[in-house]
Each structure stands twice: as C-alpha cells, then as structure tokens.
C-alpha cells in the first residue's frame, strides 16, 4: 500500500490501507452504523491473514451497497437486490476467490430475498454481511421487510403493521452454515464473527444491527446514533446457540445477539464435484479445486 493520509495524527488509522482513499469522504451520515461495520470488517481481514488480492466484495444498491466502492479490494457495486447471484457467478467462475457480499436489509431480503434463500439452500460459499438498519436509507426511510411493527416510516406513516422478517431464523431455515447477529455496539464480537465467517466454507450470514439516525431514529423520535448505541447496550443479551426462531425483534425491544448457528454442510461446488466424480469416475476433472488461498 502506498503512503496514506494521517489527517494530522501521528499514527495512521489502521483502517486506511483497506479503503480507497481517493474516494473519501464517504456518503454516510453522522451516527450511521455502516462505517463501524466496515471498521470491524477490516479488522477481520487483518486477523484472517488472507491474501487481499483474492478477496472480492460485492454489494447491491443502497447505503450499505456503497461499502464495495470504498474497499480497496476487487469490488463490485451491482444492481438492487442482485449482489448474491452476481457473487454466485464470481465465486463459481473462480473458486479460488473469497467472495463477500456486503449489503443492506432491504437489498438482501426484500428485492433480493429470493436469491438469499436459494443461495443459502445451495450452501453457496459466500459470506453475507447484512447491515440491518430497519429502513431504506438511500431513498428516504421507507418501510423494509425488517421494520418492526409499530415503527413509523414514510410509507407506513401511521406506524408499520406488517410482520417483519427474523433474519437469523430465515437464514437458518434455508440452510446457512453460520448465522450470527451483533449490533454495532458489539464491535469486538462483530469483528470476530466476520473473522470466523471468512474462515468458514459455505453460506455464512452475519446480521449487523446499525442505527440510521437520519431516517429511522429521527422519524421514530429515538434520538441520535449514540442513543441507539445505548439502546443496543441496555437491551442486548448474548445467547450463543440461541434457537433462531426465538430471536425476532420487536420495536425497541430486547435484542438477542450471539452466534446462533455453526455447522458444516457440503458447499454447492463440493457437492457438484463429489457427484460428478461418482458419475463419471476418472474421466471427471474436479472443477476449481486447484490452489485455494495462496
């Protein structure tokens, strides 16, 4: 990495080498939690010891969708909801890549919901980081599939009456091999989950609860970013191994965080290679199992 800007400080921020510094400043609002998740992600990358030339990041559209554009990795900012199928093609095209999908709750589970459930079902070897701020930030604060009942959004002006997704339960039910939820108050745990996720083979799902002070908090009179962190601190309860059907979220209610699922299942590619080796015997050359991380 070339010289980096230290912004008047004596020591360079350890996050800087991971960022495309010529793209700063970023677009995120003061108090937004997305940047905190990025900080955790860079820590996870450092500790993973991975060759960063072999890590690719794919985002959809939205505030979290901008993460790919700031990371100094091979990075792809795709279409709304379609980061997972793009990442599927990228991973299957070159299985030596570690492919991370980094996007928001609306992108991944509303418009992208079908792709999410099928990639989990197939156990596609992708790490999914879902920053859940319970709203569509980029478009001005509309109701999302994660918005708790009772929260006000521009398209639910009298309060949301739709049942939200319990994302860990969804991922678990569809077959994810690793499912965790942390908030941006839990930076160490979140970074550790991301590190574990990077090392895990198969469909990894990490939900990172994050404040959107500009739209979600303000509209619901919840204060600023710090007030939301206080809420996360006071109402979070760590229950590793919790049954995911019990971790649904209510408006400003208790938050169950932790690592809920950690299991092994053959990935789509492993299943294909194993199956075709049986069917074709020695005539079949296993696909994409050459080098791994170098």
């Amino acid at each position: 990495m070339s010289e980096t800007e230290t912004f008047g400080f004596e020591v360079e921020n350890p996050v800087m080498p991971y960022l495309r510094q010529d793209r700063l400043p970023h677009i995120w609002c003061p108090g937004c939690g997305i940047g905190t998740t990025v900080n955790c992600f860079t820590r996870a990358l450092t500790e993973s010891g991975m060759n960063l030339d072999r890590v690719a990041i794919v985002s959809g559209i939205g505030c979290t969708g901008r993460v790919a554009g700031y990371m100094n990795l091979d990075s792809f900012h795709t279409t709304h909801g379609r980061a997972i199928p793009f990442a599927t093609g990228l991973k299957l095209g070159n299985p030596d890549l570690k492919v991370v999908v980094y996007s928001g709750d609306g992108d991944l589970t509303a418009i992208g919901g079908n792709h999410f459930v099928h990639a989990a079902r197939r156990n596609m070897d992708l790490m999914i980081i879902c920053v859940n701020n319970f709203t569509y930030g980029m478009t001005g604060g509309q109701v999302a599939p994660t918005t708790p009942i009772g929260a006000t959004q521009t398209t639910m002006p009298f309060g949301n009456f739709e049942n939200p997704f319990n994302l860990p339960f969804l991922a678990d039910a569809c077959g994810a091999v690793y499912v965790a939820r942390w908030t941006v108050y839990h930076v160490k745990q979140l970074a550790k989950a991301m590190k574990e996720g990077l090392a895990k083979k198969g469909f990894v799902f990490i939900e990172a609860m994050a404040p959107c002070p500009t739209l979600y908090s303000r509209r619901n009179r919840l204060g600023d970013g710090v007030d939301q962190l206080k809420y996360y601190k006071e109402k979070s309860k760590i229950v590793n191994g919790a049954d995911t059907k019990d971790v649904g979220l209510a408006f400003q209610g208790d938050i169950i965080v932790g690592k809920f699922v950690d299991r092994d299942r053959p990935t789509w590619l492993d299943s294909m290679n194993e199956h075709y080796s049986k069917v074709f015997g020695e005539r079949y050359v296993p696909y994409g199992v050459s080098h791994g991380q170098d």
Partner: protein
Amino acid sequence: MHADPKGVLTGVHFIDGDHAACEGALAAGCRFVAGYPITPSTEVVERFAARIPLVGGVFIQMEDEIASSIAIQGAVWAGKKVMTVTSGPGLSLMMEHVGLAAITEVPCVFVDVQRGGPSTGLPTLPGQADMMQVKWGSHGDYEIIALSPNSPQECFDLMIKAFNLAEIYRVPVFFMMDEVVGHMTERVAIPKASEIEVVERRWTDKKPGEYRPYAAGDDQVPEMVKAGDGYRIHITGLTHDERGYPAMNPATQDTLVRRLIGKIRDNADKLVDVREDGIEGADVVVVSFGITSRVAAAAIEMARHKGVKVGHLRLVITWPFPAVRIRELARKIKAFVVPELNMGQMVLEVERAVAGRTAVLSAPHAGGTVHEPEAILAKIMEAAQ
C-alpha cells in the same frame, strides 16, 4: 486463436437449432452458463448441463432469469466466457441486467429463442417480436449487437461469431433464434477445433496501478482484467470515470454514454453482415431475417417464375442495422418488402433508412406459425406494380 478442442464436437450431426447453439457456445469457449427453464429455449441449457462436466466448466440453474442474467456477469469478472438462454418472458426479466452489462462493458451472450407474445403468449410457437426489445429494452442509452440465424448450422456457426463479437466490442450480444429454428432438426457440420477462430478477451498488459478499467483507446473499447489478479478494480453500474469510480455529473455521463454508443455505431460498417441474392437489377428487394428468410426465399422463387425481378437481402446481423446498404438500394429499386413474425418492427428501420426515397411494404404476421409463402408473394407482386 483456435478453439479449445475440449469443447468442439467435430463431425457431422443431425441435431436441432437449440442443440447446435449449445455446441456453438462450447466451441466458442463458453465455460459458464446460468439459466432458468423456459420453452422453447430449454434444450440449449439441457445440453450444456449434460456436456459441461467433461468439458470443464459450470452450469447452474438459477432461481429465476434475473439471477441468471447477473450470475453470468459475475463469472465474466472471474475470467469466464458466458451465456444465458431464455425466451420472451425471461428476456423481459433480464432487461435491467442488459443495462448493467452495457454500462460495465461485460462481454456476454444472451440467447433468445423467440416465441409468440406478449406475456406468456404462445410458449411453444414461433415469433420474431423481441427484435425491438433487445435493441431498446433496458432503460437509458446503450448499444448492443444481435444476430439472427435461420438454420441449425447457423446456430452453430453464428454462435461462435456472437461470442467473438462480445469480446471484441465488450457488449451484450443477442442471439435471436425463434421456436422454429430452435426445434428444427437438420444436418450440422462441426469443423475441427483448429479450423475455428475464437477471439480471446482483451486482457491488458498494464500493471496494477497504471491500469485504468475504463480508459479506452481509439477503438473506444477498454482492456479487461479479472478479479483475483491484484488490480483491485471497482466496477459499478453507476456512471463512472476511467478509474471505474462513480462520478455522477453531466460531463462524465456524456463521455461514458457517447463511448458506449460510439464503439458500436462508429463500427457499424464493419459489423454489417447481410446475405444478398439477385439484388443486381432487381425492382423489388425482400428484407428478411431468421426463419422468415427461408419462407421469403420460397416466395421469391415463385415471384421470379412470374417474371418479377426480385432480390433478397437477409439480415444476419440485425443490430446494428445496415442502414447504409438499405439507403444505397433505395435509390435503385421500386420497393422493399419486409416480412417478419411481428406486427412491423424491423420494417421501421428499413423505413428510417429509406427516408421516403422508395416504397416500403410491411408483411406482418402475429406469430404462432411462419408466413404462408403466398402471403409474401402477394406483397412482392403488389410492390412490383
């Protein structure tokens, strides 16, 4: 360079157009296909799924056409040559990703085995009514290339050309079959791999740091890299500068969109591929494409027996449209006749090129079957008056 022999099924075969299209893709070096079943195109991916394990590559049946049309683009950035295959309703779902492929300049092939529409329409019966959709279907300004085979042999031969053009120009290329061409079984001769020319991706020889993903030379087509090679590229569907970074302002938009358009329009002459028969001295010229060209050929024979001087101009590449050639002919002939399995789409292009210099007669057909040759003959006779 020559085709990789692993994908080339050299020999003489008796197969339908869908199967021949798959063999063309394999011969062209396609090693990743994502698709979703839809009549009458499914046989293309069925054959690919059966063939690819021993050729070396991946077929994945995605959850829908939206996923298929972007999974292939992910695979391109991993270095693969790719294709997806569909028909009308699936094509409609893919439209947003046609735009993504256009703005990110991803070489890829979309096969559209056309059926009658709109909507679910006639799943098992032919149409040629997607011609304007592939040209204009995604939002914004961009250019594409489209080819129209009229036989299983051409499904093989032109598919190789489709893949090569995708690499040369870095655009989505549409392979516009129809139900009849897809399901018609004929002799298909597949040459030796050493006789098949395939175009390699335009890989850069620049080093990381000096490489700019969207910096293009005089030909307006940038060089490529793939993920994992240390270039740390950023690719976005947003309007972007030469670095690939979002730059949402009118000046960058103007530079980018003009280049996306220019790399095809400025090469339109090179891209012309028409087959002409009996044009010299003709009073009437029939302009046709795809399966309709074979019906038109029968009608033209009948008209010639009646003493009419009628020529045939078949569009092999339908987009970009050979406007210059049509304009030349417009000065010399009495009328064009344009039969097509739609209510008048490519005839609009003929009219645009002719610009009132001579008569243009449309011979539309709503689809579901091919024209009766007599219907085209009647138009030729009317045109010859």
